[in-house]
């Protein structure tokens, strides 16, 4: 029973750690499926986290924080979109620029407004997204195993967590079952064909970039207004890049993306849990190996040793009308 409880704790913390990955990964999926490569997820997440925490601090409302966070990332996404779609820029360069600007800008402004080395003031509980108890969580707690799973794994998360889990199937449905989704996927594979059909490549790609901004904004707000109660410089700490890795690992498909992000979240939870843990005869667990695992797995997949990760055909290539 003790191992079971420990497993529940690790799984629960894995879910919480997976939420920003899921949201950012889906954001990247929307963008890349339309042909816009996005290595700027990290910077956008950071911007969303800062704007979210700043607005929640100033207004005392988590929802205002959410609006500000999402607005900020949509604006940055539009800059990336303008560079990629209208300026036909190198999308990698634009993404790298966004990461640097976000990293510097959030720290500078945070430091100028609140001192404290860029950290925003601690948010009150009322200005945060708090855990929601699903119905009967308490009354089922006596039921063995299932009660514990319901109470600790399914119930007791905040609204952004439930949103993240809902957004994966929604993304799947929109991309694969609607006309808009079909067109969006087509524009990432063969924009000329979409153009020939009289549909605007530009509008579709801008649409995708805005959706990307909304989703990655949610992931940033989750970091600072749900997971932690403040913004701190560099707090995204590579999560945007893990989300990118998960996107590649899931081969740009929504439901596998959800599964991959959960896996990476659990690995993260496991490595935190095993910090300083000694296996008899083997010595201390090298947690760094677990930390590196998502990246190693992604490289192995990219290399085509276990299946092949093939990106959308037109991703990264600016569309030029009329050659």
């Amino acid at each position: 029973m003790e191992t079971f409880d420990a497993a529940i704790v690790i799984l629960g913390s894995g879910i919480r750690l997976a939420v920003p990955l899921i949201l950012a990964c889906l954001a990247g999926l929307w963008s890349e499926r339309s042909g816009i490569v996005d290595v700027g997820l990290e910077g956008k997440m950071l911007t969303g986290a800062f704007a979210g925490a700043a607005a929640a601090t100033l207004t005392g409302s988590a929802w205002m924080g959410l609006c500000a966070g999402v607005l900020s990332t949509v604006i940055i996404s539009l800059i990336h979109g303008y560079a990629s779609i209208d300026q036909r820029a190198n999308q990698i360069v634009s993404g790298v620029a966004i990461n640097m600007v976000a990293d510097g800008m959030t720290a500078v402004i945070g430091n100028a407004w609140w001192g404290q080395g860029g950290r925003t003031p601690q948010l009150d509980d009322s200005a945060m997204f708090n855990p929601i108890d699903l119905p009967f969580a308490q009354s089922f707690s006596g039921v063995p195993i299932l009660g514990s799973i319901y109470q600790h794994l399914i119930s007791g998360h905040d609204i952004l967590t439930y949103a993240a889990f809902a957004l994966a199937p929604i993304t799947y449905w929109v991309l694969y079952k609607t006309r808009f989704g079909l067109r969006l996927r087509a524009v990432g594979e063969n924009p000329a064909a979409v153009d020939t059909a009289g549909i605007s490549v530009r509008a579709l790609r801008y649409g995708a970039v805005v959706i990307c901004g909304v989703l990655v904004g949610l992931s940033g707000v989750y970091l600072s207004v749900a997971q932690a109660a403040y913004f701190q410089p560099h707090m995204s700490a590579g999560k945007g890049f893990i989300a990118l890795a998960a996107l590649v690992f899931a081969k740009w498909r929504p439901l596998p993306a959800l599964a991959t992000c959960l896996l990476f979240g659990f690995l993260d939870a496991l490595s935190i849990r095993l910090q300083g843990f000694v296996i008899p005869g083997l010595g201390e667990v090298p947690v760094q190996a677990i930390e590196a695992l998502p990246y190693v797995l992604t490289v192995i997949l990219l290399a085509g040793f276990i299946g092949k990760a093939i990106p959308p055909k037109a991703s990264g290539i600016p569309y030029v009308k009329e050659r």
Partner: protein
Amino acid sequence: MSAPVELPKWADVGLIPLINVAAAFVISGLVVIAIGENPFEAVKLLLGGALGDLEGIGFTLYYATSFIFTGLAVAICFQAGLFNIGVEGQAYVAGLGAALACLYLGFLPGYTLAVVAIAAAALFGAAFAAIPGYLQAKRDSHLVITTIMFNYIASAFMGYLLVRVLREPSQMNPETHVFPPGGWVPQLHAILTYFGVKWPVTPLNLSFFLALIASFAVWILIWRTRLGFEIRTVGANPTAAVYGGISPARITMITTLMSGALAGGLAVNVILGEQHRLILEYVGGFGFVGIAVALMGRAHPAGIVLAAILFGMLYQGGAELAFDKPKISRDMIVLIQGLVVLFAGALEHMFRAPLANLLAKFAARPVDAPAVERG
């Protein structure tokens, strides 16, 4: 990439980069105003800190040395149409090469140790770049994604080694013990004092001259050798290169190896030239500065040296500025760097059309300009 608007060559090479960088600095100035400081005063303090005295200049050139190496590492891949975001990780692992040589080959006489350590740094950097290079060349895995992953793999790997294996047991900090002096790259103030010239103590060391030599060597390689021609051809048009009998896979491999070796120069400057021991996360984002330097210098060694000195000024002057004006923290430099990448890289063509219109207005009657060569 096809430029949407044709401009005279002087405007293309001289004016456009200036306008792009100026735009980055204007926006940075606006941010400074927004946080309630005076941008002109900030520039004055920054320049004073970077160039005001010999000490400032020494530090500026020390930083510039790092940026020349990382800038060249990024640029040489640009020439082959590749984007190596992994300079950060390659430089980190290169530090391991330098450290292992110094820690285990300490018996080597005099400065041969330093020479071997420099070679080891280049070798380790190249070896770490070889894996993503091979995967790009042979298995078509996108270099951008693999090098991003390898940065994190390097961070975890080096973290493990420094915390568990290489750490001096008596030390609290995850770092190796100090190298034997034979492995130190001599610092300029020591040499000048030997010759009786007074120079303040700064970390500026002979790596600076190594960086200048490396820049010249890269220029010779890219523009004066057959291999360089092949690299530029693959960068311009891989399909045409294949018709010309050039193997893009071979060029990809060679270029990423050279890029990794150049990244090792950062380890030479910082680890062998200044710290004299390997430190956790010693690279500190300087690999990414290389991207800004390479873009601003337009992937040309001369441009890179100039851009690296400018960034050296920003880093040194920025430190002094943050000391005087705590509101303008050192993160301001990261912001400026990002804006430079944005305007000199992603939005490099944004000012072309307005500039072309402006130039057309000034040249009331069209000068019969010859068809402009685009290089």
